[in-house]
């Protein structure tokens, strides 16, 4: 290797580091800086939430710092939160990969008078000042099951049959909560629908596809599959599609339009349930602004652009609203 190449290598390395460092150099203006740590970066759902938060940031003069781990790893989230605290931001929030892991960080943030909030997937800690919830977990779980039942009825003419759930990470709190409510709804209202299995595919569509394929084989008389997170619904749909069971096995669940669009268009999936993550981000931004300015929430708040939003004093929870059903009519939404 020539001497020239030797220096070139150094230049590249140094340049990269410096460029990365300089490109993001913070401007410490007199505006509030709000940190938001999603479950992971690189996925459309949280990108949509960020879009909403940025909108709120622009509107309410806040600087939004969006930074998250590359996989749904709570340890990485805690590290990022720790760095944000030391950066001296004014508020920090997370969509928690684990509800219990943030206790010490919440305390540290509160000691430094930093507002701590959680959104999308909540944090269990006394110091948590605000929870922004996309939907009432119960309402969501119920809604998904209702959609499933309707679909079963459309397919087979009766609200009975065997169904299976495919979830994401086995440790994700919000997914587990929804599963809990979905089970409750089945038991209460649809005793003839039998839940045969719950399997976990992680945040990986390939794994979800494989697992659904195996579920279909393991239970040849399966009538429906519920995907509990964004990747498992398309995974399940793909498996149903390739095994030639389109129209026989009902597929629904919780996912976003961008991800599920091809399967809605080709008819493998009729309806899925979600909320508007852009609105969720926006609501989070608004809520944080209120806290930063020391305002308190009323039981029903007038949020500009969103309308009436409920607040639960006891759990300090802002609730975005009822779940939204996505089908062919509104599949063109971009998030």
């Amino acid at each position, binding site marked *: 290797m020539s001497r020239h190449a030797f220096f070139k290598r150094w230049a590249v390395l140094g340049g990269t580091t410096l460029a990365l460092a300089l490109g993001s150099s913070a401007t410490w203006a007199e505006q509030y800086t709000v940190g938001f740590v999603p479950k992971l*970066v*690189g*996925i*459309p759902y*949280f*990108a949509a939430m*960020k879009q909403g938060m940025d909108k709120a940031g622009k509107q309410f003069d806040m600087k939004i710092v969006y930074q998250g781990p*590359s*996989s749904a790893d709570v340890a990485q989230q805690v590290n990022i939160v720790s760095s944000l605290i030391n950066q001296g931001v004014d508020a920090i929030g997370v969509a928690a990969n684990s509800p219990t892991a943030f206790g010490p960080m919440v305390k540290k943030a509160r000691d430094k008078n930093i507002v701590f909030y959680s959104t999308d997937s909540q944090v269990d800690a006394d110091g948590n000042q605000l929870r922004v919830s996309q939907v009432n977990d119960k309402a969501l779980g119920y809604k998904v099951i209702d959609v499933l039942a309707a679909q079963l009825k459309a397919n087979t003419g009766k609200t009975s049959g065997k169904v299976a759930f495919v979830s994401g990470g086995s440790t994700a709190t919000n997914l587990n909560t929804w599963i809990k409510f979905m089970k409750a709804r089945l038991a209460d209202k649809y005793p003839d629908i039998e839940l045969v*299995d719950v*399997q*976990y595919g992680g*945040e*990986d*569509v*390939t794994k*979800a*596809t*494989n*697992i659904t*394929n*195996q*579920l*279909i*084989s*393991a*239970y*040849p008389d399966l009538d429906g599959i519920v995907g509990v997170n964004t*990747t498992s619904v*398309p*995974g399940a749909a*793909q*498996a149903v*599609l*390739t*095994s*030639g*069971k389109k129209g026989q096995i009902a597929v629904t669940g919780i996912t976003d339009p*961008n*991800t599920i*669009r*091809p399967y809605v268009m*080709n008819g493998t999936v009729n309806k899925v349930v979600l909320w508007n993550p852009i609105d969720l981000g926006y609501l989070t931004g608004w809520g944080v602004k209120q806290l930063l300015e020391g305002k308190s929430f009323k039981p029903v708040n007038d949020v500009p652009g969103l309308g009436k939003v409920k607040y639960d004093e006891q759990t300090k929870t802002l609730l975005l609203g009822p779940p939204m059903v996505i089908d062919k009519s509104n599949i063109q939404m971009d998030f």
Partner: protein
Amino acid sequence: MATPASSGLNWPSWINVSVRELLLVVGVIVITAGISIGSSGNFWAASNLTNLMISTAITLVPAIGMTVIIVTGGIDVSVGSMLGLVAVAGGTAFEYGLGLAAATPVFLIAGAILGLINGALITYGRVPPVIATLGTLSVYRAAAFLFLGNHWITMIPPSVTETMVLTQPLGVPVAVWIALVLLALGMVFLARLPRGRHIFAIGNNENAARLNGIPVERIKLAAYTLTGVLVGVAALMSLGHSPMVQTTTGTGFELTVIAAVVLGGTELTGGRGSLLGTLLGAILVGLVQNGVVLLHIQPFWSGVVLGVIILVSVGSATVRRND
């Protein structure tokens, strides 16, 4: 020589190899039987067999290249990230409206480039293979994030699934045929062509190979590049299997591939290995991952079972060596 030389029996090499493979065949049969019984025959459902075949094929294709690399005495732990980055490149081509035929070269070329980078670092940069590919494992993954951002590629043309999975000449999906043809070519190449034997020669004794005028660096570079191309093929197959590209696509895939090769009896010290073994290893890994759901148990067990099978398999090889 101080180390005990091979036993006095001096069996021809092919018999020695087939003992290992025989054991694997027995393993495959036993596990298949176990799963068939445990799943009350559901294992044999057409959709399950298709799924099993496809996932085995996706593992097998890069495993062919990995076998070649390991036989030369190297290793490539970056194939998972490579698969992700290749899928990003190919998926982007699909997004630009390219059809399957037009996009296929994108997959192959992207794979070749990434493999070539690995190979160049190892051969010309003299970075140990584990280190070089450990580095590119994270670099390629970061690159996939960089290109994809917060976006997932969902608009994969249905023709990919149609061609790879749903078209099933003689009841076997096209992707599996591709894998089998590549495997057969690889076997002929390794066993019957001089270049194939040179690959073994490098793993046996790199210096001697150099002295015999075998272009060691070029062959190694080719082995890593070839693996890249095969990862490209696997990426295309996997988009047929689950048509979506995430930033995390392929995470952990390298472990599956290496496990298949190791189970197949290819020795990590280089110089010894067989593609037939790799095929059996890939099937075994596929079976283990396939079995857990069919047996109505949590997938967590698959790791435990896979780990134990690898240990038992390499352990039995040792026991045989001692006899």
